[in-house]
């Protein structure tokens, strides 16, 4: 996959917000209280999104990508402590009442979630769920007009026979079709920003490209800026112009797609690229990153990537590097030794693996970790399955009220 094949302008990020800035996140921090202490899920994330731009956010599970997105939407649980700033078209969202936020959600900023199998309400038709969003932000719209618009939207995202499909329940559609419905809901009110949180992760590989196509169509129709959250670098390459790499709740490198792919300045990015099979290179070896991300509970001082980093030096255990500009055009990296990485290949930094059994086993392990996050579900949930599940769930839980047989009343 080549970079920039969608023809987006690879423009540098302007130094100050302009009137074209639709979304600006500044020093965002999110922490969750837990029984063991404060979990700092997001530790200072900043980004800016111009009208119509595309930003990819990449990282492993638990790096804070989704939490950042939910914080922007104001949809985190009440216990979450959110600080920093989120500005939509220049006005601050953090601290707004839920009612005021509701006016912006769906009309200004829309969101697409990871798992289409569970994103739609099973008891309402897909048409009704689109209409609900339409009428919420267009109270003057007639029911008839809303219905026509819903059908039109379903057609736009590539659902065949949209007029009939509007009356379908979610369980009657495949995963890919359901995700198209979710995209239709997101684009319904012509939002300025669409945040897509791993929109294809839960789908079959064969369907992923089609759903991304539908997402592109939605962007073209609405002119919305896109925040694409993913752990798939390939997806980012084709659909966004800037990328931010997140690790342990922070952005550790950001820049244009080209800068990140060809001149990464952070060992973690390098590791991510090295662990990805690529068609555009002749590499015959993959370089995995050993270990797993640190716990965000009581994070030790120093660079959070240091324990996994082949370039680690003593300084890394003391100071956490800040995200600093590493070359012209807004390419930033949070590594003390960003300069050393100029012109480095992943294979030179990380140990390359051949096709020996040990490495295969290691790959298999990291694969299963990835899929546990993705949670693949069976493509069609039949009525019989649903009943069986609910029955066995009842059985597993035993009595719901602490006694069996209610004769003794």
């Amino acid at each position: 996959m080549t970079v920039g094949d969608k023809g987006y302008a690879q423009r540098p990020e302007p130094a100050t917000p302009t009137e074209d800035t639709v979304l600006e996140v500044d020093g965002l921090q999110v922490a969750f209280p837990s029984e063991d202490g404060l979990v700092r899920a997001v530790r200072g994330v900043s980004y800016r999104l111009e009208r119509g731009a595309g930003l990819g956010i990449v990282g492993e599970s638990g790096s804070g990508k989704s939490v950042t997105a939910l914080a922007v939407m104001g949809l985190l649980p009440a216990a979450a402590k959110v600080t920093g700033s989120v500005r939509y078209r220049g006005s601050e969202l953090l601290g707004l009442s839920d009612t005021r936020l509701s006016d912006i959600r769906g009309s200004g900023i829309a969101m697409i979630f990871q798992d289409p199998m569970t994103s739609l309400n099973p008891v309402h038709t897909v048409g009704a769920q689109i209409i609900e969003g339409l009428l919420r932000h267009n109270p003057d719209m007639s029911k008839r007009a809303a219905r026509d618009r819903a059908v039109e939207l379903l057609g736009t995202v590539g659902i065949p026979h949209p007029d009939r499909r509007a009356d379908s329940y979610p369980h009657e559609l495949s995963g890919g079709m359901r995700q198209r419905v979710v995209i239709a809901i997101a684009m319904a009110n012509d939002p300025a920003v669409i945040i897509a949180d791993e929109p294809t992760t839960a789908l079959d590989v064969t369907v992923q490209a089609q759903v991304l196509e539908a997402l592109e169509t939605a962007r073209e129709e609405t002119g919305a800026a896109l925040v694409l959250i993913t752990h798939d670098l390939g997806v980012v390459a084709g659909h966004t112009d800037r990328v931010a790499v997140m690790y342990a709740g922070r952005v550790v490198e950001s820049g244009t797609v080209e800068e990140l792919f060809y001149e990464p300045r952070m060992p973690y990015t390098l590791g991510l690229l090295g662990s990805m099979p690529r068609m555009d290179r002749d590499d015959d070896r993959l370089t995995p990153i050993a270990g797993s991300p640190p716990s965000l509970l009581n994070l030790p001082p120093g660079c959070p990537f240091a324990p996994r980093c082949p370039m680690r030096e003593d300084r890394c255990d003391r100071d956490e590097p800040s995200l600093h500009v590493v070359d012209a055009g807004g390419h930033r990296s949070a590594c003390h030794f960003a300069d050393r990485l100029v012109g480095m290949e992943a294979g030179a930094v990380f140990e390359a693996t051949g096709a020996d059994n040990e490495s295969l086993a290691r790959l298999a392990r990291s694969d299963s970790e990835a899929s546990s996050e993705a949670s693949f579900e069976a493509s069609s949930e039949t009525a019989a399955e649903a009943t069986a599940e609910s029955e066995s769930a009842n059985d597993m839980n035993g009595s719901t009220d602490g006694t069996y047989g209610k004769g003794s009343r």
Partner: protein
Amino acid sequence: MTETTEATGAMDGERPPEEREFTVVERTQAQLVLRRFLRHRAAMISLVIFVLIVLWAFIGPHLWHYSYQKYTPDNSQPPSAKHPFGTNSAGYDSYAQVMRGTQTSLKVAILIALGSTFVGAVWGAVAGFYRGVVDAVMMRISDLVLTLPLLAIALVISSRTGGSWYWIALVIAGLTWAYVSRVVRSTVLSLREKEFVEAARALGASDARIIFRHLLPNSLGPIFVNATILVATGILTETALSFLGFGVQPPDTSLGLLVSQAQTAVDTRPWLFYIPGAFIIAIALTINFIGDGLRDAFDPRQQRVRQ
């Protein structure tokens, strides 16, 4: 599980990364469950109270200077130092009677829990393990038992068996094991597809060994939770039967019988009514909290995620 880091060759093969972040202390499933249970405050307090009640009911009668079946010269005395729970109109010491009643009710409840848990767990495990015709036949029998109305059958049988505590327990256990069998069966159905069962079978383990060494131990979570529900069901059913006059018969006594005997004396001798009632509530309440704690401890999916 201990994860070891591969010493990935750093830039020049120097300083392999230390293992500090990657060693995870090994914890067995049982330790995890215990840790989660110990953290459940309501369950822990309940466990302490429940154990104290059990000890009091079984050891107390040997230490107390009145017997539950001996008259004292004091009639209808309110609680005092001499008779902490007062006396009834016939002069029985209520403290001794409540102790005896608690003991009987607990014996019934615990026998119900043990009996129906054992039968139900084995029944459910065998049905779930063999599936097919065996499962179908065994589960239809369970279903049949479930259609029998608990209190009605208990009434009919107890009216004949004359009020010994173990008969009451056996009758109730004979009607409640089917609930356990359904729970265990559905657990076993999901377990039997797991790798460790396949591995055991590949190693040539016998069916009985797989059922008793692999399937049942791994179903302990739901089994324990249901055992607590059965203790609560047992104590409430036994006391209800005794209240209606079909349970434990005088001169023996149970908490239900004591409440029944005191129901006309709520105004005049309230201690006779409130104290045994409070003991029933205390036992059922603590056992339900213990069950709640076990459920959370065994099933982290249902654990309370602070939101």
